């Protein structure tokens, strides 16, 4: 289970995720802590939700692509075709394997990967590739999301004009969405929260002190919201008393 959030901010792009994966064992599903965000050539990151095995196969394919293709911007057709063709081949192989074992009509149980690729190079881009390899660019909406917890992200992020925000502010939005989704107890989501940014200074992961600062910014924000709500509510009550 996963929640991945991609944000296209005015001065950079963000890719953030929870840090928990579920793998299988004979005794049932097992929780594991993993890093879901990975490099993809220059100024690009990717992450995926879905089955761990499929995501590992996708990663192996990405790692085998020539550097000159991987380092090309997402606007390059050659890069997009290489990724889509490989993702399609993997999906087709997995469906074939699954149908051979389980027959037709149970494709939903087959391994799959829902990919999000983020780039910042003269502007932010968010490329979403569905498990069936249909793809879409999402930067005009300001954000993209993937995983079983994505409904939290859609509900919360829609309130913010992400494209007008700085990367630092975007990181706070990403942290809040992930924190709330984990705290509410969305099944299978868990710590640690990982946040990566791409801006004119390159690609980097938020350090531990920076994550603590985000945690406290989040707490400050909630504190201020509560104070505001209280003052609005009390002001309303006072008016009614008169």
């Amino acid at each position, binding site marked *: 289970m996963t929640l991945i959030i991609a944000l296209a901010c005015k001065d950079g792009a963000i890719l953030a995720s929870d840090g928990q994966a579920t793998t299988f064992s004979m005794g049932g599903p097992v929780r594991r802590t993993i890093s879901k965000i990975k490099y993809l050539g220059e100024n690009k990151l990717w992450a995926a939700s879905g089955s761990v095995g499929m995501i590992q196969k996708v990663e192996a394919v990405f790692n085998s692509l020539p550097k000159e293709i991987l380092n090309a911007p997402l606007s390059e057709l050659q890069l997009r075709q290489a990724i889509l063709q490989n993702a399609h081949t993997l999906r087709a192989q997995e469906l074939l394997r699954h149908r051979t074992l389980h027959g037709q009509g149970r494709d939903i149980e087959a391994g799959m990967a829902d990919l999000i690729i983020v780039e910042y190079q003269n502007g932010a881009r968010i490329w979403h590739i569905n498990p069936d390899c249909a793809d879409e660019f999402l930067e005009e909406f300001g954000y993209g999301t993937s995983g079983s917890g994505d409904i939290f992200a859609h509900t919360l992020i829609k309130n913010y004009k992400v494209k007008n925000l700085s990367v630092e502010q975007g990181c706070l939005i990403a942290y809040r969405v992930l924190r709330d989704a984990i705290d509410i107890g969305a099944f299978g989501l868990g710590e640690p929260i990982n946040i990566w940014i791409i801006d004119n200074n390159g690609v980097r992961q938020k350090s531990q002190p920076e994550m603590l*600062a985000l945690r*406290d910014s989040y707490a400050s924000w909630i504190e*201020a919201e509560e104070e505001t709500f209280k003052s609005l509510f009390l002001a309303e009550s006072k008016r009614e008393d008169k």
Partner: protein
Amino acid sequence: MEKQDWLIVYLSLPSAGETNLIDPIRIMKGLFLFKMEFKEKLKDFYDYSPYLYGPCSFEIYKDLIGLQMKGIVDSYSQPLYRWSYYRLTEKGQTWVKSLIKDAPTEFLERLKTIKIKVTSLSFLELLREIYKKYPEYAQNSVINFGGHL
């Protein structure tokens, strides 16, 4: 005294309330006010930048992590409480005695006053006061007092 020593001394000083636990915002803001008052005299103190909740020093977070690993500081958080609170451990309380002995009285007395003040104000009162006095550190804040500081 090193900057980290001032952090340890600050944690040991009394708060306005009875608790010895302090949240990270009040650590951050207390040491910021201390720095601003003594910036000519304090050499190599924490760097602050305008952050999402006003003046912030990432070095302080780094030092808090380091001090926790050394067993001088511990943090306390409860499920559903959004803050992590910090305090000195027993080892930290022993450690701080020699630091207090070495601390210049003028600095120490002022730091005591600052901590009492910082811990007596509500969260928003504290931010409002700091933003009013140091608006250049409020420019990236997510909490906007709408120009009515």
